[in-house]
């Protein structure tokens, strides 16, 4: 009895320990890192799979994280924390020069690179020579983005919550305030100039607002929501940029996507959804170069082109606008 009892107990203990040791040698990962939650958290309950009408045709990587993007004349201008890189459309580096750190946004106009810092604007030529610079005109300025057009340089101020207009030579022109007030919870206050009109985002109110170059408010559009045709989260859109026919492209954060609206606010289509863009939750920077979409996020630049086949079931395919992107 004693022997059999001992053997039973001993056998039980040895088998438990033996099983543990066997697992240590073969699958230690299961033993130590097994969890109840194997998938991450998902906020969107029903994710409708979106087919993007645009397809990624080309892409390249740059040495550092991209903070700003602009295009002009067939060249792609990128700003990383300390450098400005100028690439050709096929990804060949044309030129690069160094700039001070802390750049907020970049705009290229008539061959000059306008670099926006939190309280200053610096203008460089393509070879990195400083041409002009001026400091912010107001105290406590925290600049976010800028747009350059013949009438002047328009800069959005996230802390003072207005737009500051400068003459092309840098002298202060005027402040532009929104009739309902700009609500800017984070540094997503995009602005662009097209055909003598200024379009900017009022991110906290989910609006895209239109002004004349003198600063008079014209109109606004936009609504809150997570579905297409609306602006999600708390502060969207981040980027507003025009296509060559004047239609407005917006880029959002949170659920990264690029949408197309008319200047009056009619929603056209979602051009690129989160999957096509590459995921994450930061907004992707986007510019239009004739018939291509140039998208920058992280340290990657992607070129997207309209794909007739993919667009058949999307609003883009049904859209009757004369769009230069749809070739």
């Amino acid at each position, binding site marked *: 009895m*004693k*022997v059999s*009892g*001992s*053997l039973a*107990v*001993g056998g039980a*203990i*040895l088998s*438990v*320990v033996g099983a*543990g*040791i066997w697992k*240590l*040698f*073969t*699958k*230690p*990962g299961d*033993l*130590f*890192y097994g969890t109840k*939650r*194997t*998938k*991450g958290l998902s906020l969107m309950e029903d994710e409708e799979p979106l087919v993007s009408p645009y397809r990624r045709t080309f892409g390249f990587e740059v040495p550092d994280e991209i903070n700003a993007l602009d295009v002009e004349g067939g060249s792609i201008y990128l700003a990383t924390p300390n450098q400005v890189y100028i690439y050709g459309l096929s990804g060949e580096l044309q030129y690069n020069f160094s700039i001070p750190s802390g750049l907020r946004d970049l705009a290229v106009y008539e061959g000059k690179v306008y670099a926006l810092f939190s309280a200053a604007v610096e203008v460089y030529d393509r070879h990195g020579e400083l041409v002009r610079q001026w400091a912010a005109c107001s105290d406590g300025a*925290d600049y976010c983005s800028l747009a350059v057009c013949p009438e002047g340089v328009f800069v959005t101020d*996230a*802390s003072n*919550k207005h737009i500051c207009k400068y003459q092309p030579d840098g002298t202060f022109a005027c402040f532009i305030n929104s009739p309902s007030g700009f609500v*800017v*919870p*984070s*540094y997503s206050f995009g602005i662009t100039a097209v055909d003598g009109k200024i379009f900017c985002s009022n991110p906290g109110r989910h609006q895209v607002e239109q002004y004349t170059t003198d600063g008079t408010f014209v109109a606004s559009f936009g609504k809150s929501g997570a579905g297409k045709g609306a602006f999600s989260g708390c502060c969207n859109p981040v980027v507003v940029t025009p296509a060559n026919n004047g239609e407005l492209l917006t880029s959002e954060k949170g659920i990264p996507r690029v949408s197309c609206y008319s200047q009056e606010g009619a929603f056209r289509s979602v051009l690129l959804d989160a999957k096509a863009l590459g*995921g*994450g939750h930061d907004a992707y920077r986007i510019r239009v170069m004739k018939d291509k979409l140039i998208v920058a996020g*992280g340290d990657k630049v992607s070129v997207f082109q309209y794909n007739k086949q993919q667009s058949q079931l999307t609003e883009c395919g049904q859209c009757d606008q004369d769009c230069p992107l749809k070739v």
Partner: protein
Amino acid sequence: MCEARFPKPDFTSGYQYPDIEHGVPLEWLWNVVDIVLLIALMGVVVWAAYKRRSRSVILGVSVVSVAYFGFFRSGCVCSVGSIQNVVLALTDSSYHLPWYVLCLFIIPILAAVLFGRVFCAGVCPLGALQELVNVKNFRLTRAVSAALSVIPWVYLAFAILYAATRSQFLICRFDPFVGIFRLGGDLGMIVFGVSLLLLSVFVGRPFCQFLCPYGALLSVFSSFSWKKLSITSKTCINCALCIKSCPVDAIHSPQTSKTKESRSAGVKRVILFAVLLPVFTLCGALLVGGQSDALSSAHKSVYLYHLIQEQQANPEMEMPLEVETFHALGGDIEALQAEVTEVQHQYAIYAYLAGALIGFVIGLKLLRLSVKRSRKTYEIDTARCTMCGRCFSYCPQNTVKKDEKAL
């Protein structure tokens, strides 16, 4: 990488940001109480075992220990686990060892050098818990006991391996009683703990005898203790009443060798030991060390690396969250590969050492089994004795003393 600033909302109503208080942990003073109580309780056990030979005092200490160290302090950090902290402190210079963990580790060891396994008597909450539920005393056969007694050393070797390579705290992962003390935790471990407790109702101290790595360490120190516990202060009359009382089979019966062994036989035996022991050690080292790469998957980076490789080989498989996070945070595969090589190199060294330890211990135990020590009376094997105090009341010499006093 933190964001520098955010544009502040322009509050016009004079809104003030609220001040938020956060909960503070238990006073640091409790750690001092822990160590003071540790020393005090061990002192009480020494007095109870050596001077009074009273089991009831030792049981009282067990109750205090289960209540304070067990349920109040949740049985964590304990001396058994402190081995890992100490090993980590020796190999990782960036880890700051708390002084009270050091005390938890070293004080019972020093007490063992002086008086034997005083800690195991009733001060260790795990041992005390088993002691309090132990009713019957079903002893396992010598052979089974000897076989199972290798396990604590295996446990110790692996615990040191994983702590030294900064992979895991193995003892904490498989602590059976902390779930009971904490009243919550991993279901598997609680089931294991409850089963061990049920077992300890009729088998004495199963965790202490067959699993505890700290016990293995203490047994080395207590086998050379300065003061050795004896069942009675008077001379042993060889009545053999005590031997059945010990739950861990720590009382040696007298052995007298009938014939004195010849010198040449003795020399041959020593040479045999001198050859066999290193052979065992080497075999152990090769067996475990040869598997060091397989063992290294216990390290998180190596595990992640294997997951990435597996995912790259089967892209249609669902991506594990670890791999997804690695890529989302911009993980550098080459840096990970370099780290994995470094970790596996460390594993190679420590796995050989761990295997050598296991081999050495197995060899030593086998050789000890074949050696017959001559002994004239019933003696306590201080390496195994957990000072529970059961034997005191069985010895007639102890009761005689009381009767004499009454007279």
